[in-house]
């Protein structure tokens, strides 16, 4: 069913100098504390990370609840901020595809798709035998997902002991980690242009429309990067 040797190789991505465990822990601890602030109980906080497992969406949910937004509004706001998961899945899953692997593995493991797991998988898939890449992915996913859920609980329980400056410090870890990982991934002209274009257009379009900013910035900067890369042969 699952090649456990490869599975553990994915799980082991949590060790070493590229470990995502610290940034993941930091941001989900901060989230746990925020959810407590928003009136969640411990089970609800854990359930949120278990079923959603996408930090920006969970932040949007908590903040929308704090300002009293309707459920429909929350749904739309979360959908727009998490829509990035669609192109991210399409740019990763074909790399993990193998005819001999059952479809259910792909449809279930797509739940593990989040920025951290995606960046690790993109960084390491080439070293894995094509046939078992999906098991490698499941290993990465189980590791990051479990870390996220456990740390949400830790954050919830330690909320009273963390002061504001500590929470602010924890909150920056996540974007810093992602930025560093993306810079590490800039191996060709199209990805480099996509990263620069997105970083500039994201905040810029946000000043016009807070909800649609990510979608527009991503499609515009991504398409430009695709065209630039195509023209230069890479």
């Amino acid at each position, binding site marked *: 069913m699952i090649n456990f040797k490869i599975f553990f190789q994915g799980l082991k991505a949590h060790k070493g*100098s590229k470990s995502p465990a610290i940034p993941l822990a930091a941001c989900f601890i901060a989230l746990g504390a925020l959810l407590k602030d928003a009136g969640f109980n411990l089970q609800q906080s854990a359930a949120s990370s278990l079923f959603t497992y996408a930090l920006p969406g969970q932040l949007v949910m908590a903040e929308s609840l704090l300002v009293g937004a309707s459920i429909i509004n929350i749904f739309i706001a979360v959908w727009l901020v998490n829509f990035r998961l669609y192109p991210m899945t399409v740019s990763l899953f074909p790399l993990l595809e193998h005819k001999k692997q059952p479809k259910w593995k792909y449809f279930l493991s797509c739940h593990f798709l989040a920025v951290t797991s995606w960046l690790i998988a993109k960084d390491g898939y080439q070293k894995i035998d094509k046939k078992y890449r999906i098991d490698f992915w499941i290993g990465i996913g189980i590791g990051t997902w479990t870390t996220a859920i456990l740390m949400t609980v830790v954050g919830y329980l330690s909320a009273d002991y963390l002061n504001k400056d500590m929470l602010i410090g924890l909150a*920056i870890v996540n974007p810093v*980690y992602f930025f*560093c990982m993306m810079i590490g991934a800039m191996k060709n002209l199209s990805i480099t242009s996509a*990263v620069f274009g*997105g970083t500039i257009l994201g905040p810029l379009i946000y000043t016009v429309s807070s909800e649609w900013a990510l979608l527009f910035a991503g499609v515009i900067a991504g398409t430009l990067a695709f065209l630039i890369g195509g023209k230069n042969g890479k």
Partner: protein
Amino acid sequence: MASSQIIILAIIATSLATFISRFMGAITSKKVSVKSKVFEWFNCVAYATLAALLGRMIVFPAGVLADSDLFIRIVVLIICIIIFMISKKNLVLPTIVSAILLSVLNSI
């Protein structure tokens, strides 16, 4: 403060809104070949969207981060990227430094 029922509904709505994109992605993936132009385009859009999200998180953050100064956030980010570059792409070091640095700079 939101009631328990509202919170549960919000968790369900958030999870559904998130899973739709992942699941649609998994379905689309079945029809996309790694060597196609479409795949390359999706790859560019994925990186650009992610970069847009990160740019927004630093410039217009949600949550507690909004209580820190924009200038301090950018300084911390740049210092950490430099650490990342000179430490042979070590990711643990810049992330630990970022938390300590921002906490300290923000409390001054």
